[in-house]
């Protein structure tokens, strides 16, 4: 067993190799493709699970290789290290990815370009594993960029649909804004510490100037905010729903978007030294949690509801990070991965069965799709925070920790969780109860779609009782369950659920009343974030571009272009004398170059 666990690179290399195999021989494999592709996440899952069984405390196993040598300052090393946090992440990634691949066998059946799809899933698994097992920021960054690329590839899977292609580009560019922050953080830490492995950075962190620590933390936070679709970089995630629902479940709910939370938890020794960075993290998390939850209240597309819900839940995690409860954040990450993947796959099953994403065209699906309906109810309960489902425990822990540190933000989070219960109850009623309003023949998917739902439902239901062991494994202290908080949040959840249920009942088919319509439409567009970005970012950029075009391009460039012909003729005369076809002249130039190089090396080079 230990031999298996010592091969930490295998969680990256095997999925990578499988991605190549699937991409190359996908056509040959045919219907067997999912069966081959599932090996990658299962391997990751097995590795993570065995690590947990063996017991990992602190940095148990590690290995690293020299990657690049830069000057005399030492090299960039890329290594792997498996500790409790990594093992937990590997289990989450492996489990969700395996179930998603399994679900895809039914959901994506008959699509074109399936080798591409499964290859991208394997590549994503490899990249996500790289991100979590890396023993330093360099490896994390490689994985970070690769998951972004996979996200781009998979959102744009139906690239012939303009909306999907646009969404893919939007997701890529928006997260890229965050990536720049991450890269700058790496550069800053490299300059200050000279080594980017976690151990070295964290060892050096206390001796760095406070300003540097804050700057580095904030830059890391920018990266995390971009990846996790937090305010103000949240705009890409709702659009990312253009990808296949399976992809949304894996990448945009359970794993990649959680990478931001993982990053902050990983870099906790750095963040803990900067109260400013923590305050910013808390504010971002709180604002995002409540804003996205409000936006989810009025969505008419089942996937959009879940997308805003994901943003909101990630906001909860950031808020927890902001008050230092990173163990609670990771625990919520784990439970959220289970119940949100469940909800996404459930919505996939609904979409597969009814052929629509619009809530208005659903209704009464519970009778027609009992497995999907039952598992959805468990997931919805977990999301709303009903005891004893998983979300109840993890959300409680967050609320408890935030309430202990910042009561004002805790109140806001309570509001967000009230809205959470409201929107999920509304969505549930609209999709699964009352009468069927669509025109198709909804039906349950095959077993390959039902089994993942059942497995995830088991986790969404039971994971809450693992709170203590998760906290123990990742090495965080676990807050005791506060009865008052638990009671309050349960009451909020029940109240939200009832209200949502009621509103969904009286409100359809007209989804919002005219008086409410202005606010609702604003919320439906995610508080008009896209318009805001268009006004605040795109318009100025386009305006500046237009000015540049008018002035620089028309006047300067065209001027140069029009003046180019005479100039070129003159230059040509000079250069023809250089290019005479005279080999000896060329040899002379070559010799001159050699002499110049020698001079450079022996005189200028010394000074460097």
């Amino acid at each position, binding site marked *: 067993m230990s031999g298996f666990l010592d091969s930490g690179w295998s969680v990256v290399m095997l999925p990578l190799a499988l991605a190549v195999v699937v991409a190359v021989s996908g056509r040959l494999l045919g219907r067997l493709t999912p069966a081959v592709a599932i090996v990658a996440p299962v391997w990751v899952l097995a590795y993570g699970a065995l690590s947990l069984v063996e017991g990992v405390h602190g940095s148990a196993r590690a290995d690293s290789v020299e990657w690049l040598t830069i000057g005399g300052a030492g090299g960039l090393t890329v290594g792997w290290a498996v500790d409790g946090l990594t093992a937990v992440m590997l289990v989450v990634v492996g489990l969700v990815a395996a179930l998603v691949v399994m679900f895809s066998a039914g959901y994506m059946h008959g699509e074109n370009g399936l080798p591409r799809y499964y290859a991208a899933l394997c590549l994503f698994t490899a990249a996500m594993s790289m991100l979590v097992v890396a023993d330093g920021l360099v490896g994390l960054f490689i994985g970070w960029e690769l998951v972004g690329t996979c996200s781009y590839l998979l959102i744009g899977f139906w690239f012939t649909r303009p909306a999907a292609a646009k969404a893919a580009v939007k997701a890529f560019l928006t997260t890229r804004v965050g990536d720049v922050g991450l890269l700058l953080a790496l550069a800053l830490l490299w300059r200050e510490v000279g080594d980017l492995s976690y151990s070295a950075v964290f060892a050096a962190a206390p001796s760095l100037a406070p300003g540097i620590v804050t700057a580095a933390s904030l830059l890391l936070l920018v990266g995390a905010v971009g990846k996790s679709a937090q305010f103000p970089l949240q705009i890409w995630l709702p659009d990312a729903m253009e990808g296949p629902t399976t992809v949304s479940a894996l990448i945009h709910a359970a794993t990649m978007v959680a990478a931001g939370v993982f990053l902050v938890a990983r870099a906790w020794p750095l963040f803990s030294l900067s109260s400013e960075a923590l305050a910013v993290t808390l504010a971002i998390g709180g604002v995002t949690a409540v804003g996205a939850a409000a936006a989810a209240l009025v969505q008419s597309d089942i996937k959009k509801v879940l997308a805003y819900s994901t943003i909101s839940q990630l906001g909860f995690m950031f808020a927890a990070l902001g008050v230092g409860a990173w163990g609670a954040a990771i625990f919520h990450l784990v439970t959220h991965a289970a119940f949100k993947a469940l909800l996404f796959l459930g919505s996939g099953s609904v979409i597969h069965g009814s052929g629509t994403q619009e809530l208005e065209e659903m209704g009464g699906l519970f009778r027609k799709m009992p497995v999907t309906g039952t598992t959805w109810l468990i997931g919805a309960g977990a999301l709303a925070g009903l005891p004893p489902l998983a979300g109840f425990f993890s959300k409680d822990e967050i609320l408890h920790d935030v309430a202990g540190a910042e009561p004002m933000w805790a109140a806001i989070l309570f509001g967000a969780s009230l809205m959470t219960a409201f929107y999920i109850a509304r969505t549930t009623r609209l999709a699964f109860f009352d009468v069927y309003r669509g025109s198709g023949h909804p039906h349950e998917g095959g077993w390959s779609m039902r089994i993942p739902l059942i497995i995830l439902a088991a986790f969404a239901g039971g994971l809450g009782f693992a709170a203590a062991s998760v906290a123990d494994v990742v090495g965080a202290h676990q807050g005791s369950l506060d009865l008052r908080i638990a009671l309050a949040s349960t009451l909020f959840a029940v109240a939200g659920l009832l209200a949502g249920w009621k509103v969904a009942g009286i409100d359809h088919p007209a989804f919002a009343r005219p008086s409410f319509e202005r606010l609702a439409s604003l919320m439906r567009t995610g508080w008009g974030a896209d318009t805001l970005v268009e006004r605040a970012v795109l318009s100025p950029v386009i305006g500046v571009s237009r000015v540049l075009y008018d002035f620089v391009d028309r006047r300067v460039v065209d001027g140069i272009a029009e003046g180019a012909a005479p100039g070129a003729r003159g230059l040509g005369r000079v250069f023809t004398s250089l290019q005479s076809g005279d080999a000896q002249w060329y040899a*002379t130039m070559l*010799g001159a170059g050699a*002499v110049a190089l*020698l*001079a450079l090396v*022996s005189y200028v080079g010394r000074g460097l």
Partner: protein
Amino acid sequence: MTLASIIFALLGVVAVSGAVVTVFARDVSRMAMGLGAFLLAVAGFFVYWGATFLGVVQLFVYIGGVLVLMIFAIMLVHRSPDGSPLLETRHDVAALAVAGGLFFMVVMALRGVVPDSVNQGIESGPAELTEAFLGPMLTHFEMGGVLLLAVLVSVVVILGGDDR
């Protein structure tokens, strides 16, 4: 002045003057003689330093082979109708600058590396040479053989083509 330094100076003078003639002579046969003198001086250096075998190889291959080949080529090539096989040299400031610059740069760069006096001599003889070629440098040896074969074939191809 020791005997050694006199021999060194003598060989040096021959080598340099041979090279000067090779590079500047206008007459073809004088250029060939200059090259011969240069190569002989190099062989002399080898022998003087104790690398006798290398000197002999230099003598055989260069003086016996390359120089004869070159004279052949000169005879073949310069059948000019007016009977004036003069070699053109277009003296060039740029070339002078490059050659001079290279000289300066390399001398400055290697100044500390190359010892002043050549006093030790080379002790290894043909036995060590053979051992080197059949041992650690076997690959070089084989590559040399392959290269010579390739040269043989390519010369045949180049010259055998369009013989009218």
